[in-house]
């Protein structure tokens, strides 16, 4: 068994992970940094971010305005100290990336251009056509590979965190090329592994977004916060679920029902299509549920109409969307509307972290979508997530570097690693049952879509919980067909499902307990927001008997909860 040592391990190499890497490397060129990612960095899901990155760049805009939009979008569940810090940092990140070469779209004067986005009361989405995340990723990757003290472990699949005395000691990972389990020793670890939306069937997410880091931290003792809040994006392309950016509506696109109505008139007369995502997704689902959706071979849908924008604007501002709609949806948005419906898109919840990205486990940091410092509360605004990855990725890298410089390696026993080897190779790979992983995964995803979707109700959540727990039982009886070592994607698919089942369970239990409707969490049996009882964050702790819940208060600095109208 091989044990490798690095001062800092960054797990995940999407936006937050790469930004953390750069930030750690900038903090000191003496510390030894390793990036562990199950994909090559630029294959990460962050490249799918399209519409933009929010930042106050215009003197007519203000930090308070951005902060209030975020807090109101969050249905007042965001921690306001975090929000205030975030909005002040975001513009610096835009400039940093510009200085590294990011090709931001420009105003005629040559300044960074900004477009309107849902829930933002000012056009503050900096964008690079409709491939913002893609460009941010390629820019960060280009920067990250310039540091000599950064080593990349591409295609290493992390399986568990090693924690001793409530402090991180290291982790285990499978080197996919050899199939061997490798142990890493580290003084600090930054989790930046993204969201878990692959627990749903209809999702905008890349195949590998299975929430591994959330599950590893949870199993190691860190609580998961606010996991009931899953954002559904209003415009997932039918039939694949691939994202059609909110920027399409930012540029003036309409949502139309089968009667030809711009139905948002009824739900958000002021902001219309640019209301926050929870509001628009609910409106769409209601239209569909009440029979006003279009009918197609892949089920009912809503039409996203861009035809009035004209070919020139679509080519300049939304070139990827046009290509994707043509290639994957079979429609040319210049000529006809795009078929869409709400798709699981973002996890507001994640590993509990504070404003410095510290988790309750010493030396463990979390940034980006896998983390929850409660920036987004109950509903995230579009373009705040890429900004979050940059801001808090930067914070995490610096904090982890400082911590690593002040501490020593924690020793851990070889038995710990041997036990993990046993769990993976004898346990999961060695099982000779008759359940198939793809089958179990599809069942899980269908249950989540059907019963833990946009609208939730107690009896459905309860039955979903029972069914997910049944699948967890059946998972003990799986058989992975591929028994080889090299690049065993059958094994990693099983490990991912194992992680996702834990996360699905936490999501459902958190949702079941929250008897109110707030942001993305809509309970048909509790339709109102209940600030008296539920202005609190959910914490879910791992126990052998399933998640144990606890609650902590929301930090309010300036803005008291108010009615949320758009």
């Amino acid at each position: 068994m091989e044990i490798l040592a690095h001062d800092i391990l960054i797990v995940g190499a999407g936006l937050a992970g790469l930004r953390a890497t750069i930030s750690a490397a900038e903090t000191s060129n003496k510390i030894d940094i390793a990036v562990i990612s199950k994909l090559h960095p630029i294959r990460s899901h962050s490249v799918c971010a399209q519409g933009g990155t929010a930042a106050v760049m215009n003197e007519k805009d203000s930090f308070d305005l951005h902060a209030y939009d975020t807090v109101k979008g969050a249905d007042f569940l965001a921690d306001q100290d975090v929000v205030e810090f975030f909005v002040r940092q975001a513009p610096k990140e835009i400039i940093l990336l510009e200085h590294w070469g990011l090709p931001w779209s420009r105003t005629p004067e040559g300044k960074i251009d900004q477009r309107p986005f849902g829930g933002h009361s000012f056009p503050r989405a900096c964008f690079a056509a409709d491939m913002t995340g893609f460009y941010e990723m390629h820019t960060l990757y280009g920067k990250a590979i310039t540091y000599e003290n950064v080593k990349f472990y591409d295609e290493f699949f992390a399986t568990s965190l090693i924690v001793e005395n409530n402090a991180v000691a290291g982790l285990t990972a499978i080197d996919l090329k050899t199939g061997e389990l490798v142990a890493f020793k580290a003084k600090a670890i930054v989790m930046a592994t993204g969201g878990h939306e692959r627990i749903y069937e209809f999702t905008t997410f890349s195949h590998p977004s299975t929430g591994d880091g959330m599950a590893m931290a949870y199993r190691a003792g860190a609580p998961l916060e606010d996991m009931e809040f899953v954002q559904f994006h209003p415009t997932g392309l039918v039939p694949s679920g691939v994202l059609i950016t909110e920027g399409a509506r930012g540029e003036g696109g309409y949502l139309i029902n089968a009667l030809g109505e711009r139905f948002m008139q009824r739900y958000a007369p002021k902001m219309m299509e640019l209301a926050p995502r929870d509001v628009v997704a609910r409106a769409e689902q209601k239209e569909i549920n009440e029979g006003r959706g279009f009918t197609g071979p892949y089920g009912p849908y809503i039409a996203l109409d861009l035809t009035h924008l004209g070919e020139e604007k679509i080519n300049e501002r939304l070139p990827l969307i046009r290509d994707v709609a043509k290639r994957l949806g079979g429609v040319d948005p210049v000529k006809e509307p795009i078929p869409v419906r709400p798709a699981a898109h973002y996890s507001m919840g994640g590993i509990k972290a504070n404003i410095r990205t510290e988790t309750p486990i010493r030396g463990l940091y979390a940034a980006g979508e896998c983390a929850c410092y409660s920036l987004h509360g109950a509903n995230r605004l579009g373009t705040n997530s890429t900004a979050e990855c940059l801001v808090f990725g930067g914070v995490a890298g610096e904090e982890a570097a400082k911590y690593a410089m002040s501490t020593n390696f924690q020793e851990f026993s070889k038995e710990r690693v041997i036990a993990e080897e046993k769990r993976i190779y004898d346990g999961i790979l060695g099982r000779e049952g008759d359940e198939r992983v793809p089958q179990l995964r599809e069942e899980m995803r269908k249950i989540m879509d059907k019963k833990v979707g946009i609208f939730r109700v107690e009896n459905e959540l309860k039955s979903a919980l029972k069914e997910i727990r049944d699948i967890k039982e059946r998972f003990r009886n799986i058989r992975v067909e591929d028994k080889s070592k090299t690049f065993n994607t059958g094994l990693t698919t099983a490990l991912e499902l194992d992680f996702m089942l834990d996360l699905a369970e936490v999501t459902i239990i958190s949702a079941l307990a929250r008897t109110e409707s707030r942001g993305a969490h809509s309970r048909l049996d509790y339709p109102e927001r209940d600030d008296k009882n539920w202005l609190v964050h959910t914490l879910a702790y791992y126990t052998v008997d399933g998640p144990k819940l606890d609650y902590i208060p929301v930090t309010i600095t300036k803005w008291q909860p108010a009615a949320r109208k758009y």
Partner: protein
Amino acid sequence: MNGDVVKTIEFRIRRYDPDTKKSYISTFKVPIRRGTTVLDVLNYIKENLDEKLTFRRSCRMGICGSCAVNVNGKPMLACYTQVLDLNADIITIEPLSNLPVIKDLVVDIQPFFQKFRKIRNVLIKPPESFKVQGEFIQSPEDLKKYWDLTLCTKCSICYSACPAAIDERYLGPSALSTNYRFIADSRDEGLEERLKPPADNIWLCTSCNSCTLFCPKLVNSSDAIVETRSLLVESGVVPKTVKDVLENVMRYHNPLGILQSKRMAWAEGLNVKTYPKVNRADVLFYVCCLTAFDVRHREIVRTMASIMDKLGVNYATLGIEEWCCGDHVLRMGEKGLFEMLAEHNIAVFQKFNANSIVTISPHCYNTFKNERPYKDLQLNVQHYTQFLAEAIEEGKIKPTKPYNKRVAYHDPCFLGKRNQVYDEPRRILQSIKGLELVEMRRNHESSFCCGGGGGRVWTEEAEPEKRPCIERVKEALELGVDVIAVACPLCIATLEDATKVLKAEDKIVVKDILEILKETL
């Protein structure tokens, strides 16, 4: 996904088992619906038919670059390719070329990504510039100048399709176009530094255009390479071999450095009319420098002349006033010299009254057809294979003697990939009795370049096994053919050399289509 099944298609997937080191094919029948992508098919197989099938996947929307594979011989993104668009009932899926296979469709991408570590992937400016508070100003017009090159997803398709990349010194199309993307960025001030990484290897590019042809994001790496070479030429930092070619052209108006007065030596004993003695003809016969000067090519051009004589075609050449068309100097980045050549040739064209131009070389053909300033004249230009295919179809030429040989046709890049002329050369060969025409594994659009284009025929210095021509001849040898038929003087030069290096001259010969035709008339 639901929707109606349109048809069931057979997929043949190239597998590789790293434990036994065995390569084999698995066949699967998969129901296809409207909208089903190649990645959907791979997922379907893994989830329902064979869980062991191994491939990479991530975004499924053409932006992450994970799932590039060869589909029916062409590299493409599995997630961005609709099965029904392939118009095939049997579809073969193989791993990308040029990269070592790890397992099934998974290749080792590290050699490709290592190249990006040799260039700077961030803006270069003096340190004090970065102290400014705000952004660097860049007009939308300046942004447009390099925007198209920023679309590269690093999927490695171009690298896998690139004949020059078999030499590991070569940075590859993607890293080179990324390097040029920064040069073209108005904010960047690192020109000198950026010209260093490509300086000693960019000359390996053969201008075959495969990188650009197969790029899922339409990134024109081919042009970015020419632009970079142009800056290298301007800065004077070029290898001696390159300098020599350019100097030859400058002095002698041909890359071989032979006096123009010898240009008509090939026509000895034939009664070929030349400018300026005649200044009108139906066909202007454009010979090409290599064909005109190198005795190896003499029979080819003489055959063409005699066929035209027999057909009663009123043709003439420009004689010693035929200067190099300039293709190679253009691809080598010497734009000024190209313009000088073009200016001369165009001036002569204007004094010479012809209905059409027929070229021996696909390179002259492409230059006249597609490159400014020739292009602006909208010349009526034909490659000789087009001219002959027409004549055969009209019954004016009848190959009568049998040619009992197994022949593989090698598509020249400047005829095929750049001008989609695939059928005419094959039609000529098919009209010959006894000739068994077979296709090499890589043919038509996915044909593997001989390695002679882009000036490389003059500057070749790679070790033998890293020359594209060697790989190509090996491919033909595996096929067991007697003859590699070509229709380009550069392909003859490179491939014939490869048969010698491989000591395979007794097993296989390289012949121009005209040489084969001559034996049958």
